[in-house]
Each structure stands twice: as C-alpha cells, then as structure tokens.
C-alpha cells in the first residue's frame, strides 16, 4: 500500500510540476482573491474523518482537555452535543476563528510590537535608548528582508546543487528524493545546513520553510500562534500512513492528541528536529520505539527551552499554570487526587505494554534464521528533545498499590474558582489574561501600579464577560479614567485580549468599542501605541463580516485623527515593504482609511514617494495598492484628486515586477470605476501604456490590464470609445479562447463594458464580435459555474441592446432544445431578459415558430425544481409576442392541461402559474372559449391537496375571472363561489391570499350572481381570516367586508361584526372594528352609526372599546363627511372621555383627533371646544398610550380650532407653582409652538415691563 501511494504521489507531483512549467499562469493573490494554494490539501485524507489540524479547534478535544484516554475511546465519545444544541435553537456564539480562512488566520501570527518613540512628546530630547525609534524599526525590517533574501538564495543554491547532483546520475540514486519530507532526509538537510551556516539552528534552516516573521524581537503574546509557515502547516497525509516502523510516532500517541497544549499532530514530527534536535547521543534509543509519550511530547511546559515554546504549533500555548493540568504536570505540583492516581496507574499500565521491546524479547519472538539485524542509516539522528525528556511521565516505580490519598481541601477540581468580588464568570481561556484576579492578594499590599493594572483587568473582564449593566458601568469607568490609567497599561491589557484565538464576535465588538472610547479620551497619548493598535485592528478590515469592517475603519480613522498623520506614517511605513503579503495587504487597507480620515492631499507626497521606491518592489506594490483601496473606499470622492493619483501610479504599468504591473492596472480600474462617468482626461497618460501593454502581456497581467481598459472605455467620448474598443477587441477575441476561468470572467465583463458605450456600432459588433463570442462562450460548460453563467447572460443582454433581439435570439434559439438542462436554462434566461427589454417586434415568423417550439420543449423537459426561470421566460415571450401567439395557444393550452394533471406537484403548480401569466394575452387573442375551458379544468382541480398548488390554481382562476369578466366566466360564478367558501378555511397563507383576492373580486364585480345567504356564510369565514398573520390578507379581508356589505346591505354584515366585538381575542376585535369602519364608509355612515352607538350601551368593556375604536377608524376614513355626524356622536364621546377606564378615554381621544382633523374649517368649532374641555383634564395621564392619544387630540384641536385657543388653555399652567404641572404644560406648549409658531405671535399674553427689561410689544398696539 505504502509504496504504491508514494509512487502515485510522486507521479502526480511530477505532473503538476510539468503543468506548472508549461502553463505560464501562476495565480496572483491580489487578482484572484486571498486563497493561498499552499494551504490547500493536495490529497484526500486517508481516514474518513478529517482530523482537526489544531487540537484546540477540535471541540470534543477541547472539552475533554483534562481527560486523557486512547484516541479510539475519545472518538467514540458522543460528539452530538453541538448539533443537538443547534437543532434545539440554542446557537452557540460563534468564534471568529472558526469562520476564518487560512489567510485571515495569519493575523494571529503578527506580533504586538513594543511601543515606539513619540517624537512629538519628546521634543528635542534624544530618545531614551530603551524605546524603539522609527530608525530602529526600519533597520529591523531591512534586516528581516535581507535575511529573507539570503534564505531564498540559499534555497535556490541548494536546489541547484540537487539538480546538479541529479544530473550526476549515480549519486542521485543514493540521495533521498528531496521533496519527500521524511525525517531521514530532514536531518540530513539539517546537517548540511548546519555545516554551511556554522551550526546556527533555527527554524528557517528547514529545507522548504518560508521564513516567517523573525522571532528574536517577538514580544511573546500569550495567545499568539507560532509562525507556522504554510508549507509546514500543510500536512501531507500520505506521510502518516502507518507504516510498521512508525507506529510509535508521537502522532499516534493517545495523549498527544488529547493534551490541550499539545502541538497539533500534523506538525510534530515534521518539525520536531528544529531547534530541539541538538544531538546528545547519550543513549542510543531508536526513534521508532519511543514510548508513546504521555505528555504530548512537544508541549511547551515547564522546563521547555525557549525555542520549544515557539514550536510551529498552531496551538496557542499558555503558561504552565494556565494549561489544564495534565497528570504529569500535576505530579510535579503536589498531592494527587484519586482520579489522577488512577489515571497514572492506567497510563503506567499502557506504557508497560507498549514499552520498547528489548533485544531478548525480539529474539524470542522471531525465528533465528531468515532475519538480519540492520544498522540504522548513518544519517539517522534520534530525537532527544530535552523538553521531552524532562517531561517524560515520572511514573511511580513498579505497579502502584492503592494508598489512601491525602485530602486536600485547597485542591481545584475542574470547576472554575468563583471569581471574587462580584466579577463575572471567567472562561477557561480567560485565565491566562485574568488569572491574577483570582489570587486573593491583599489589595493594600500591592504597589499603586499593580493596583491600577488590577483595576483595569477587572473592568475589562466585566466588559468582556459581564452582564449588560456591569458592562455599561465598566465601559464608562474605563472611558472616564482612561487618562488616569494611562495609555500603556490600558493597551497592554486590551490588545492581547483581541489576539486571543478563541475570541467571539460579540467579545471582539465590545473590546473594539473599549478601544474606540479610550482612544477618544487619550488623544495624543496613544502615539507610542499606534502600531500595536494597528496590528490588532487591521485584520478587521478584511473580515468577512461587514460590521467588523466598518468598526475597523472607524477605529483606524479615529486613531489617525488622534495620533496625526506623521505618527501614522511613521508607524505604518515599516510594514509597507514587510516580507509578509498579509501584512502589506492589511497595511494598504489601513492606509486608505487614514487617507479618507485625514484627506487625500495630506497623504499624496508620501504615496508618491512610496510608489517610486527604488529599494523594493514590495513598497511600490503596497503604495499602488493603497491608491486602489482609496478608490474603493471613498468612491466618487476621488475625483478632485484623480489626476494626481493616476500620476502617482502610472509608472507602475511599466514596472519591472509583474505583480506591480498587475496591481497598477487593478488600481487604475478601481479609480476609473470610482470616478465614472467623469474624469477621462485624468487617464490620458495611461491610455498608451495600457493599450501597448495588452499586446505584450499574457496571463494575469493581461487580465488586469483588460480590466482597467474595461473600466476606462465607458468614460470616453463616443469616437474615442469606438476607436479604443476596436483596438482592444482583437486581444479580447483572442482571449475568448482562454481556458482560465478568471480571464473568461474579465473578458466577458470588458466586452459588456465596451459594447454598452455609445460609440460602438451595431454593425461592427455583428460582424466582428458576435461569431467568435457565440462560438467560444455559448457552450454548455459556461452554464455550470454560477458566476460565469450570470456574467455571460449579462453580457449577452448588453450586446442584444445594441444589435437587437433577432440576432441574439436567432443564434441561441436552437439551444433551447439542447440536451443539457442548465444550458437550456441559461438560454431561456437570456431570451427572457432580451425580450423583456426590447420586445418581440424584431422576431420574424420563422424565428417565432422556432422560439415557441423551443420554449415549449424547454418548459416540458425541465426536471429541476429550482427557480422559475422557465416559467418567467415562457411568460415573458408570450406577453411580448401578444396576438402573434394565437396559432400556438391551443398547443400551449394542451401542454398546460396535460401538466395540470401531472403527478408532480411542482409541475401542476407551474402549469397553473403559467395560466395566470398568459391570461391577458389569451384574451387579446380572442380565445375566450379556450379560457372558459381552462376555467372549468381549474375548477375541477380545486380539490387539490398541496396548498402551494392550490394557491396557484386559485391565482389562475383569479386571472381568468379578471380577464373575461363575471358574466362570461365558466363555470358560472354561482357555482364557483360555493366551492371557494370551504377553501377560505384553509390556513395556508398562499391559499388564503389567493382565495380572498378571488372572493373579493367576485364580491366587488359579480355579487349579484350569488345569493345573499352564501355571502353571509362567507362573512363568517372572513371573520376568522382577520386573524391572518400576513397584512395583505387582513387588508383584503377587510375590503371584502366592504364589498359584501355593499352587495347585500349593511344590516346583516353589521350584526355579524358587532357580535364579533364580544369575542375575547384582541386582534380579532381590532380587525372587526376596522371592518365596521369600512362598512360604514362604503355604505354611508348613517346606515351604521345608529346600530353602532346602540351597541355602546352594552355594559361590557370590550364592546364599548370596540365601538369607540370603530368610531375612531370611521372618522378617520370618512374625513370631511364627519361634519354631519359630529353632533350625533358628541354625547357618546363625552361619556367615554369621562369614563373611569383609561382605554375608554384613550380611544375616545383618538376618535376626537380624527374627528377634529376631518372637520377642520367646516364650522364645527362649538362641538370641538366642548370636546376639548373633556379632553384637556387628561393631560396629566402617565400611561404612554393614553398620553399619546391625548397629545394627538390636542394637536388635532390646534389644527381645527387654531393655535390661539389652545395657547389659552396652556397659559394657565406654564408657570404653575408645581413643577410636575409645569412640565406637562410646557410639553404641550412646545408641541404647539413647533406646530404653529407664527400663529402664536398674535396670541401671546401682554407682559408688563420690569425695571430695565422691556417685555411689551408696542408694535402690536399701532393703529392707523
């Protein structure tokens, strides 16, 4: 098995290499999204379940962190907890890291840098040697870069040497295949490198490790991941096929995987030699037969060398006392609990069985002959990790006997210690940050600095984990005392928390909020910490969550306002040519935010310098990328600076580095997109290089250039656009054939942009573009990818807008009968859009025939249920053709009828939907008989049991009834309606909606065909429908009440409705009151009011309120007509406004409001003043609804009676001795004032002058 796999793998690798060398396309991250191909797994896992690369990520493992057991047992653990929780609706808060891709996770590799020198604060002083200055940072960066280059050179040289060795022939056979990373050649390589590099053992000696960020200057942040280089993190699953010799691999150790702090399995044995493999040949112990180390051999724990703490484990490792105690660690600490004791005994047992076989045992096992003892290869170096040695489980000697364990009351079990002093619950991962809070030290003994730290920690913990009130006060305290705490202590506590790998969205949001508030307070004090903050905040800019991105932008913009441009540039400049693409990417984005915060002009000189950097292409690349990001971020606001931005980046088009050329083109595209449709003159200088570039470039650079051109052409005048389009079209047509998906998408987009500009003629498109376009793009494969599909449809529709329907539809109509369904769907969608846009007048008889034929075929042959593409297409075409479909209608109806009878519900539903779409056209064609026939067929299917289908059938019936009218309808209305009555009981929304619409339609237009008794029956059903959730249904129902009342007279309907007021359910009553008001409106109020007012005499709260509410709605609906009824209802309202019940007064007040607004200016002031006197005493109510209604009633009075009258009511209380009274009166006065300020001038009281102050208004006394 093993050699076979190895062989295939080798072959594949070879093939891939060949492909890579043949194919000049190497993918660029900038162009093709952030996916890093190195991160992909190139082979399929051998085991079914994918082992989590990161032990901490694995939920079960994490939960069981304190238990150890063989892996087989662990796997049997029911892991259903999560799914159960989710299915029950308890969603766990999502960790950010879980949804991040590999690229985004690189944020955790960044280092929170030490604070920097603040030149502003220091003034002329020479900076303290302990703080880092800008120069130092720049030097470090340069050093890093140099190292990287050296490493690359070394790698290159090595490769060359290997190749040379291969060519050497004989020697190559002996040398191990370099790509195969097993430990033999690993150590060999190590040896080689060591020899060359004077024995410096550090991680970048690994043969194919891309050196990450240098470690020497790393401030060890607790949660920080090791710098796993992608190549290391990538796990080659073939390598771990259990070959007999490797069984004892640390991978396979039971405890290794389960120990929380363990380095993820994948990297252990690939990487162990690094740094730790100091050969100390003391005891020749073969690596294979290493004891399955219980202590997760590589776990950095007490005694681990510093290097070990940064093993490229992706696992964040904490300090010793923070890691969940594993037996070994416990053992070092003190007395054991019985569980631990048992665990140890059990481990010991396992170990006994798995201990290395001695030579004697082996001799006893194997026959003496036929076996040979092999020497280990000369290059084999066993691992002798000091860390591992130290941590090897100190097992009790011999099989331990049971001894009564000492009782230890101070022992912590797995239960978290209660946090003292009302602090919120601490999660296990919080211990490393907030653990200190648990030590109940005496606060007085601490130094002031420590006390401050403690205070900050407490507040942060409250913000992070506390209840909302706790959080709020803590946040306020942090903000208020920010300057007192000082920037250093604050950020040193906050920022590591944000780097915590287990952070959740909510927590991050809260912490970011803290930073924002604190920033505001600290202002210029943040300067030394700018870079620190940026390291933490920048990743937010590329988060997939929109709100996180917005938050990130906000923080950075506030930060730049607080720190100033100079500091921001000084902090970010070193990152611009960082060796890590991730850092450069996020820095570019951050810079664009700075630009938008401080203004582009301020940043221009700097950008210019960066974009022209001679030192490194990375700097130029990032500089140009900043311009791109600025364009994306601020959109059309780039226009004033467009020319200078273009000038800054234009030279990048001819840069020697391919990546720089690409990003320049992309930036130009972004600028052109942002400034559209203006600003073409700013792009003059880049036109030539762009158009020249498309001739000389290939692959992704060409794609980027084309993209830029695609965005620039629409800005041009017609003549130029036409000229340049012709120029670029040659290249585009050539690239039509490109196999690259991204290139295809870009080409399609550019074609769309070119074609839609004014200057491009239809004839040119027809002759030059169409043939190739259809030959290359209208193929089945394009329909399979969603984005291709969409882009192709859009482009084709755009072309059709230029060349007309016939050309396009003529070319693709045959494909409606293609055998691939997705392709047919794409054709149909295009035809639908084209025909909807442009109509069907271009389509000749022959094409029309083909089209209908094809559509019928495609409609009938569809199998997939999704989307209504076919249905929409059919409807659009039939509607566009109008009367021309007459000859085909019998055939179409035949199809529909046949499909209405189909077994599949979906098919039936579609057929019914189709009827409702084409009903209007059928009428135009004069096919009333056919429609009548369809009506009967649909009528027969009213027994349909699928609600979705039934709803569609009702919809189709409605469409037919609408078109042919009540009299001609077959089946006759008097037969149809009784069939609908029981359907009204159906609770399905779609059925309800369609049914009520149909019934309402009949009640409106053809009520006379149905006996009154049937309508009464329907009224009862309708009452139930008033409860529907959907507003549309309730509204349709209420309207239907109106129609029915009109048809059969209001008395009976009203009786039903008034009875309904007695029911308990509130919503039902509310809907009934609305219905009563509608009935009153449609049948004139005088038919309803007497009965309604009579109902008020029923001594029942609900009924009386219902009556009042009906009155309120009634006066709202009848408006001016109310003037005839106001005197009739006034006594009733008087009574209601004096009622003890609040709701009475509230509803009556709202009735008064509607009444007043309705009769304003119609001479009913006497009645209104009378009512106002009843309303006014209610102004002191406190219940929100009541006071609201009362205020609104007074507002209504202001409109009807004038502001002066209301002001006079107000004046009594504006200066009342009781504040409570004054408050209320001023509130009323204010709304009066806002509503009618000018009108009050004439009505203000006359104030007497006082000593030095004049209050009188003599002007008003003037008289001619």
């Amino acid at each position, binding site marked *: 098995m093993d050699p076979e796999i190895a062989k295939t793998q080798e072959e594949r690798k070879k093939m891939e290499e060949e492909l890579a060398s043949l194919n000049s396309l190497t993918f660029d991250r900038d162009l093709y999204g952030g996916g890093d191909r190195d991160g992909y797994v190139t082979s399929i896992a051998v085991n079914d379940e994918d082992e989590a690369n990161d032990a901490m990520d694995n939920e079960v493992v994490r939960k069981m962190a304190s238990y150890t057991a063989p892996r087989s047992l662990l796997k049997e653990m029911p892991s259903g907890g999560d799914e159960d929780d989710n299915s029950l609706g308890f969603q766990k808060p999502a960790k950010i890291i879980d949804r991040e891709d590999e690229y985004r996770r690189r944020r955790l590799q960044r280092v929170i840098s030490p604070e920097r020198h603040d030149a502003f604060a220091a003034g002329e002083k020479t900076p303290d040697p302990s703080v880092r200055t800008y120069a130092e940072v720049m030097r470090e960066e340069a050093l890093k870069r140099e190292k990287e280059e050296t490493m690359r050179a070394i790698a290159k040289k090595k490769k060359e040497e290997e190749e040379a060795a291969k060519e050497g022939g004989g020697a190559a056979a002996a040398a191990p295949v370099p790509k195969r990373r097993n430990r033999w050649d690993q150590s060999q390589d190590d040896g080689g490198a060591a020899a060359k590099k004077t024995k410096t053992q550090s991680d970048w000696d690994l043969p194919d490790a891309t050196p990450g960020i240098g470690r020497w200057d790393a401030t060890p942040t607790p949660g920080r991941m090791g710098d796993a280089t992608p190549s290391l993190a990538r796990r080659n699953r073939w390598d771990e096929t259990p070959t007999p010799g490797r069984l004892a691999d640390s991978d396979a150790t039971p405890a290794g995987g389960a120990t929380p702090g363990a380095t993820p399995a994948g990297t252990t044995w690939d990487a162990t030699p690094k740094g730790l493999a100091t050969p100390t040949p003391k005891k020749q112990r073969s690596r294979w037969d290493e004891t399955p180390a219980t202590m997760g051999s590589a776990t950095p724990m007490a005694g681990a060398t510093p290097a070990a703490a940064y093993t490229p484990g992706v696992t964040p490792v904490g300090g010793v006392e923070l890691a969940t105690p594993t037996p070994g660690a416990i053992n070092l600490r003190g007395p054991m609990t019985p569980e631990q004791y048992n665990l140890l005994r059990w481990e010991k047992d396992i170990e006994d069985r798995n201990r290395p076989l001695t030579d004697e045992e082996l001799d006893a096992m194997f026959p003496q002959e036929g076996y040979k003892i092999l020497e280990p290869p000369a290059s084999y170096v066993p691992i002798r990790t000091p860390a591992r040695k130290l941590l090897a489980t100190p097992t009790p000697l011999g099989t331990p006997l049971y001894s009564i364990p000492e009782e230890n009351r101070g022992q912590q079990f797995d239960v978290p210690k209660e946090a003292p002093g009302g602090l919120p619950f601490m999660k296990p991962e919080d211990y490393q940050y907030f653990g200190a809070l648990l030590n109940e030290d005496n606060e007085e003994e601490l130094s002031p600095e420590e006390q401050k730290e403690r205070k900050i920690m407490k507040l942060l913990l409250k913000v992070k984990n506390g209840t909302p009130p706790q959080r709020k006060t803590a946040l306020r305290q942090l903000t208020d005392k920010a300057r007192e705490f000082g920037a250093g202590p604050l950020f040193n506590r906050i920022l590591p928390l944000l780097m915590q790998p287990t952070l959740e969205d909510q927590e991050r949001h809260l912490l970011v909020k803290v930073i924002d508030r604190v920033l505001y307070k600290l202002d210029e004090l943040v300067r030394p910490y700018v870079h620190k903050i940026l390291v933490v905040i920048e990743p937010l800019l590329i988060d997939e969550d929109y709100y996180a991105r917005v938050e990130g932008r906000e923080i950075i913009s506030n930060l730049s306002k607080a720190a100033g441009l100079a500091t921001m540039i000084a902090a970010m400049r070193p990152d611009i040519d960082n060796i890590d693409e991730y850092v450069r990417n996020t820095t570019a984005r951050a810079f664009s935010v700075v630009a938008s915060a401080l203004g582009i002009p301020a940043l221009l000189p700097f950008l210019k310098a960066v974009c022209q950097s001679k030192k490194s292409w990375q700097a130029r690349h990032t500089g140009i990328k900043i311009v791109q990001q600025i364009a994306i971020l601020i959109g059309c606001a780039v226009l004033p600076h467009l020319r200078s931005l273009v000038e800054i980046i234009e030279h990048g088009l001819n840069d020697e580095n391919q990546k720089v050329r690409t990003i320049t083109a992309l930036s130009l595209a972004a600028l052109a997109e942002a400034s559209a449709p203006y600003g073409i003159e700013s792009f003059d200088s880049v036109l030539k290089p762009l158009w020249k570039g498309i001739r000389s470039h290939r692959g992704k650079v060409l794609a980027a250039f084309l993209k830029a051109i695609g965005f620039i052409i629409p800005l041009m005048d017609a003549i130029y656009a036409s000229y340049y389009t012709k120029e670029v079209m040659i290249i585009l047509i050539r690239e039509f054939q490109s196999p690259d998906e991204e290139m295809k998408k870009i080409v399609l987009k550019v074609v769309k942009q070119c074609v839609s500009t004014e200057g491009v003629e239809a004839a040119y498109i027809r002759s030059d573009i169409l043939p190739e376009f259809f030959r290359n793009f209208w193929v089945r494969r394009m329909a399979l990818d969603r984005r291709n599909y969409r882009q192709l449809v859009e482009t084709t529709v755009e072309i059709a807008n230029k060349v007309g329907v016939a050309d396009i539809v003529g070319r693709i109509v045959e494909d409606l009968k293609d055998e691939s369904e997705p392709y047919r769907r794409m054709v149909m969608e295009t035809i639908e859009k084209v025909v909807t846009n442009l109509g069907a007048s271009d389509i000749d008889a022959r094409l029309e025939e083909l089209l209908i034929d094809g559509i019928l075929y495609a409609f009938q042959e569809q199998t997939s249920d999704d989307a209504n593409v076919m249905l929409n297409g059919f409807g659009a075409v039939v509607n566009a053709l109008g009367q021309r479909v007459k000859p085909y209608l019998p055939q179409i109806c035949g199809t529909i009828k046949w499909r209405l009878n189909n077994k599949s519900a979906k098919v039936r539903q579609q057929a019914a939907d189709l009827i409702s779409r084409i009903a209007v056209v059928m009428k135009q064609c004069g096919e009333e008989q056919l429609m009548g026939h369809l009506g009967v067929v649909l009528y027969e299917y009213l027994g349909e049991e699928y609600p979705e289908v039934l709803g569609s059938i009702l919809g189709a019936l409605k469409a037919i009834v609408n078109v042919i009218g009540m009299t001609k309808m077959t089946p006759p209305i008097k037969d149809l309606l009784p069939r609908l009555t029981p359907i009204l009981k159906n609770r399905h929304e779609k059925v309800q909606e369609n049914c009520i619409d149909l019934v309402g339609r009949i009640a409106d237009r053809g009520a006379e065909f149905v006996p009154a008794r049937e309508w009464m029956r329907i009224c009862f059903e309708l009452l139930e429908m008033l409860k529907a959730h959907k507003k549309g249904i309730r509204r349709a129902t209420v309207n239907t009440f109106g129609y029915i009342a009109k048809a059969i007279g209001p008395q009976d309907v009203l009786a039903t409705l008034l009875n309904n007021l007695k029911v308990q359910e509130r919503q039902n009553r509310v809907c009934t009151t609305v219905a009563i008001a509608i009935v009153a409106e449609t049948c004139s109020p005088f038919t309803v009011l007497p009965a309604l007012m009579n109902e008020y005499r029923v001594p029942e709260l609900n009924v009386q309120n219902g009556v009042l509410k009906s009155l309120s709605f009634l006066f709202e609906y009848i408006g001016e007509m109310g003037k005839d009824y106001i005197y009739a209802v006034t006594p009733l309202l008087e009574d209601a406004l004096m009622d003890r019940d609040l709701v009475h007064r509230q509803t009556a007040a709202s009735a008064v409001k509607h009444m007043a607004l309705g009769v304003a200016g119609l001479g009913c002031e006497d009645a209104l003043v009378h009512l106002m006197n009843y309303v006014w005493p209610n102004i002191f109510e*406190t219940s*929100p609804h009541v*006071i*609201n209604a009362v205020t609104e009633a007074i507002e209504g009075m202001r409109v009807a009676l004038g502001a002066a009258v209301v002001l006079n009511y107000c004046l009594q209380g*504006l*200066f009342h001795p009781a*504040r409570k009274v*004054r*408050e209320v009166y*001023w*509130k009323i*006065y*204010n*709304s009066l*004032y*806002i509503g009618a*300020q*000018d009108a*009050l*001038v004439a009505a*203000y009281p006359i*104030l007497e002058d*006082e*000593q*030095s*102050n*004049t*209050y009188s*208004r003599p*002007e*008003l006394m*003037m*008289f*001619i």
Partner: protein
Amino acid sequence: MQASDRFNINSQLEHLQAKYVGTGHADLNRFEWAVNIQRDSYASYVGHYPVLAYFAIAENESIGRERYNFMQKMLLPCGLPPEREDD
C-alpha cells in the same frame, strides 16, 4: 417612570422638542420666555411683508428701515438679563 416607558416616544418627546430654538421647559423664567416671544414676534413682522408695510406707514419710516430696526432689536429684545436672585 416605569422601565417600559424609558424607551418609548413619549420620553424622547421633550428631547426632540428641545432641539428647536424657542421651545421652553419647566425651569424657564419670565425673562427667557419673554425673549423668545419678542424674537418670534420680530421674526414674524419681518416675515410678513404686509405687516411690515403697515408698521412702516404707522411709524412713517421706510419698509427697509423698519426691517433693519426689527432685526437689530432681535439681538437684545428685552435688554440685559436680570441678576439672578440666588447667586
């Protein structure tokens, strides 16, 4: 105030009203209110051309002069604020 009231529109009403210049509150004194009244009046005179013309005829001044005078008076319509009694 109940917890439920804290967030409804009524509680915000006062805040909303306070955004307009010229609205009052329970602690407004006679002087402040009078200033508002005066300013509103002058603004109204200036805003209604017929009223302005009427005053102009009555005072035998040009309309422009009247307008200017009214606008000037809006600065300190009631004179300097009185000394507060409590401090």
